[in-house]
């Protein structure tokens, strides 16, 4: 059996060619910043254990992605792993572990491109780790540290982390002009609402097993630097938002083909209202494209976090 069959690609791996050069560069800037900071944080946290622990756990995530279970209609659920790693190791260590996993998948198995690797790391490593970490910690504070509340917190964290990663992928594809945001965001979010359930089930199963056999491991993530982390991530997310808005504005410039069209004068005829059935990036009833594009992103994010909040409340009630 070839390895590529064993490690079926997770559908979030963006191949080369699907992101524009500008978007790829933005992804690398974000990824490099996250990795550099993660390297410093984990060195302080783990000392000389850093390299062997991170390396072996990266191999573990890679291997664990091969453990799948049949869901329905020939599809199977399996792990992405960002949340599980973040719960066991803390978010920064999880960023490194996931970077190694995603990097090797791209270098060795061509799962995901090399130029777009920056955003693949951000989507599947950084965003999943931090979404999972924050939700897990917040829900644990709300629900307590009993078995069922830990599992509920892990489930919500894992589920939403996959959705957030998928939404980020959709936004990047839209910025690159590969697909309109109005199509990509609901499609990616919708599919991953389902895929996220598989992630949640496996994460819960794994947490339950670890809780029963070596509970001390679940406290390791607690010792990870948390306060400095939270502040930094706040700054980082603000920065990411700025970059997103900036690059959205930049991507509104006509690309090469459209410029030619403009110069030769057929853009006027090309922009027939009939072709505006699925208007790029925009919510139709808002005039300003830039404004409504950004609004579409914000609304999508709010909807997902709203769902997460409601689920968390329900879980909290059932756990109490």
């Amino acid at each position, binding site marked *: *059996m070839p*390895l590529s069959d*064993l490690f079926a*690609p997770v559908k979030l791996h963006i*191949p080369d*060619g699907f992101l*524009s*050069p500008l978007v790829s560069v933005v992804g690398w800037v974000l990824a490099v910043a996250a*990795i550099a900071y993660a*390297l410093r944080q984990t*060195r302080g946290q783990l*000392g*000389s*254990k*850093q*390299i062997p*622990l*991170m390396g*072996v756990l*990266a*191999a*573990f995530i*890679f*291997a*664990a992605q*091969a*453990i799948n*279970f*049949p*869901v*329905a209609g020939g599809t199977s*659920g399996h792990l992405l792993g960002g949340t*599980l790693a973040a719960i066991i190791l803390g978010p920064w260590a999880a960023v*490194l*572990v996931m970077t190694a996993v995603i990097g090797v998948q791209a270098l060795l*198995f061509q799962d995901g*491109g*090399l*130029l777009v690797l920056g955003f693949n790391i951000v989507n599947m490593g950084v965003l999943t780790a931090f979404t999972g970490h924050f939700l897990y910690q917040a829900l644990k504070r709300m629900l307590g540290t009993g078995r069922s509340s830990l599992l509920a917190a892990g489930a919500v964290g894992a589920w939403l982390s996959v959705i957030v990663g998928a939404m980020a992928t959709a936004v990047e594809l839209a910025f690159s002009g*590969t*697909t309109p945001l109005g*199509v*990509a965001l609901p499609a990616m979010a919708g599919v991953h609402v389902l895929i996220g359930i598989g992630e949640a*089930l*496996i*994460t*819960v*199963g794994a947490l339950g*097993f*670890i809780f029963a*056999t*070596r509970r001390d*491991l679940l406290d390791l993530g607690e010792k990870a630097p948390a306060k400095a982390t939270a502040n930094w991530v706040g700054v980082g997310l603000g920065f990411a938002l700025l970059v997103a808005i900036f690059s959205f504005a930049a991507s509104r410039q006509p*690309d090469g*083909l459209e410029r030619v069209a403009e110069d030769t004068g057929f853009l006027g005829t*090309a922009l*027939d209202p009939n*072709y505006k*059935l*699925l208007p790029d990036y925009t919510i139709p009833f808002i005039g300003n494209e830039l404004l409504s594009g950004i609004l579409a992103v914000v609304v999508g994010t709010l909807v997902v976090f709203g769902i997460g909040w409601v689920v968390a409340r329900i879980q909290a009630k059932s756990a109490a």
Partner: protein
Amino acid sequence: MHINLADQHHRGSSLIHRLDPRTKLIGTLLFIVAATVLPPGAWLPYGLLFAASLVVAQRTGLGTGFALRRSFVALPFALAAITLPFTVPGEGLARLGPLTISAEGLVRFASILIKSWVSVQMAILMTYTTAFPELLWGLRALRLPPTLVAIISFMYRYLFVLADEALRLTRARAARSGAGADRRRTGGGVVWRGKVAGGMVGNLTLRAFERSERIHDAMVARGYQGEMRMLDTPHLHDADRSALVGWVTFLAMTLLIGFVF
């Protein structure tokens, strides 16, 4: 079953195999950058890039069809761009119900597929002709953070060990949850199956964690102090220099053709 036999690297002594890993990394990255930067619908430069990938494939001694066969891995992702023919405004070609396929949209869609396809091919050729430890050495020589490279090296070292453990767990599950003649019905509901898979992942977590502790102890016993030491990096050979110069010239010409004509 030991899956370390399924590594991607193919031994050989061709010119491409003998190039410095740094040369191959930089060359591949520049190739992908060129493919990404090219405007949509630049068919001649796309053809040149594809021809270059065929020439490189032929020079590796593995044959031109070799990389082609594996190069469809990125194809499922084409779904992400499938809306382009319908949403990009332009000259209408055909109608599908309420949707119009535009020529401009089709060009954009085809361009993305071709760019992605040639990029994957070049990446495959790089991995097939360079052993992974060499690739890691090249990354480190290109100033990637040494700690990150060390983490990836450890990952690669234990990848196959842990994948074997994962396979053993999967085999044990298959043996216990006896599939009937109707293979679609095995085990309980989806939630139950998910929890079983989760338990296996938890099991693997502990094995990985405890293994990493043993590895760390063994390293400390041999004098490890938290720092990976490396030999000096040698200079690039003349063959590497001329290969890189030729490659960059070719890519620059391709870009020039793409943007001027």
